[in-house]
């Protein structure tokens, strides 16, 4: 016996992108005292001049909704036409239920399927891959993919390895049907042997403790082994990026825009060198004024390039995101 299938024959593409930046502009000068550092050192190590933090009212849900409203409007559809919401985040601190359901409701979708995914900095590109497959398979017609983080809340301001890096914001993309294919096959995977390279310092049981042994009572901040991550990201990920171009059936000469996860300007530069990207390819450098927003960084960076005219409708953009896990995902997309 064979069960019914969804009778769909369609390609998928990104129909619209939107983003929202935390409203507090935090220069390096406001970060350095707690880590005994300097503006020059931070810029030299990361390329970051300032970062965006959310204020007390800019919750994960609030930033997601604001970014999504823009993406939906630019996609030329209404919220009611969204039938699936995928939220990639590691900094929504209420573990259950998924924040995606509240976002879907606030936006005014009609009981859209809604769930969160946990792939850290790689989350948005995982979401785009899922959305692409859902649309092509007929599981959904218009998928809203959100990458959102409020990392300032889970970053130790006294940690020299992370305090100057992480930041807050949201990015959203609507993925829907298309006559031509606008999203390449995904190249993704994980290197679980490096599970400890980037992680929450301890789990919630260690925070709470027991009556006999009280826990730390401190937020389980993010930790990172910077040099090891730098090596993996700059070189292993450059190979994944080039593999993604092959899977998309294009050469680097045909690529217009490169949007890597905004982890660190030094990683972006090293990747571009290692990939031997031709000089005409425009490279996202949103991190200088935004910081590293994990799952939100790729859509934030792409949105800035579109607004500033560096990425134009029809351009081919290579998206690659990588981070805790270690997990990674990459695809070529046509800019909406």
């Amino acid at each position, binding site marked *: 016996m064979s069960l019914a299938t969804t009778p769909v024959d369609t390609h998928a593409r990104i129909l619209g992108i939107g983003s929202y930046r935390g409203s507090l502009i935090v220069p390096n000068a406001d970060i350095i005292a707690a880590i005994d550092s300097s503006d020059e050192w931070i810029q*030299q*190590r990361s390329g970051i001049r300032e970062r965006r933090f959310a204020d007390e009212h800019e919750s994960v849900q609030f930033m997601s909704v604001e970014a999504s409203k823009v993406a939906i409007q630019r996609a030329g559809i209404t919220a009611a036409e969204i039938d699936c919401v995928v939220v990639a985040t590691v900094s929504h601190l209420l573990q259950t239920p998924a924040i995606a359901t509240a976002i879907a409701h606030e936006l005014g979708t009609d009981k859209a399927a809604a769930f969160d995914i946990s792939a850290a900095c790689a989350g948005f590109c995982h979401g785009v891959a899922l959305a692409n497959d859902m649309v092509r398979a007929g599981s959904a017609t218009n998928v809203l993919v959100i990458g959102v983080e409020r990392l300032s809340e889970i970053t130790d301001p006294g940690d020299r390895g992370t305090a100057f890096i992480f930041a807050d914001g949201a990015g959203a993309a609507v993925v829907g049907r298309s006559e031509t294919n606008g999203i390449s096959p995904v190249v993704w995977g994980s290197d679980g042997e490096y599970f400890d390279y980037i992680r929450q310092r301890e789990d919630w049981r260690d925070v709470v403790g027991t009556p006999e042994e009280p826990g730390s009572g401190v937020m389980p901040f993010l930790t990172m082994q910077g040099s090891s991550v730098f090596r993996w990201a700059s070189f292993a990920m450059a190979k994944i990026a080039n593999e993604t171009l092959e899977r998309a059936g294009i050469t680097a000469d045909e690529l217009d825009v490169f949007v890597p996860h905004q982890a660190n300007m030094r990683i972006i530069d090293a990747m571009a060198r290692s990939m031997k990207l031709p000089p005409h390819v425009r490279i996202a450098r949103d991190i200088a004024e935004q910081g590293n927003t994990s799952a939100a960084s790729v859509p934030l960076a792409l949105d800035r390039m579109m607004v500033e005219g560096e990425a134009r409708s029809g351009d081919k953009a290579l998206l690659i995101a990588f981070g805790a896990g270690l997990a990674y995902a990459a695809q070529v997309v046509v800019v909406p």
Partner: protein
Amino acid sequence: MATTEEIRSDLADIVNEVAGVDTDEVQLDKAFVDDLDVDSLSMVEVVVACEEKFGVSIPDDQVKNLRTVGDAVAFIERAAA
């Protein structure tokens, strides 16, 4: 088998490409961080380029032992032997 001077010269080219240091400066007695201003992230790039150039493996936990250009050349000579 490359001579010490050949390895030093190739390494100098790598340090020049990664960190913009004049190749004549990259001598065996020079320390990467203190003398050549090659920071830890650039050092990672140098190490990966050396792995490709010389066909050796330089694990993360070894990098901190490569304080001088001479340390790196000696490591490469041993690893390639």
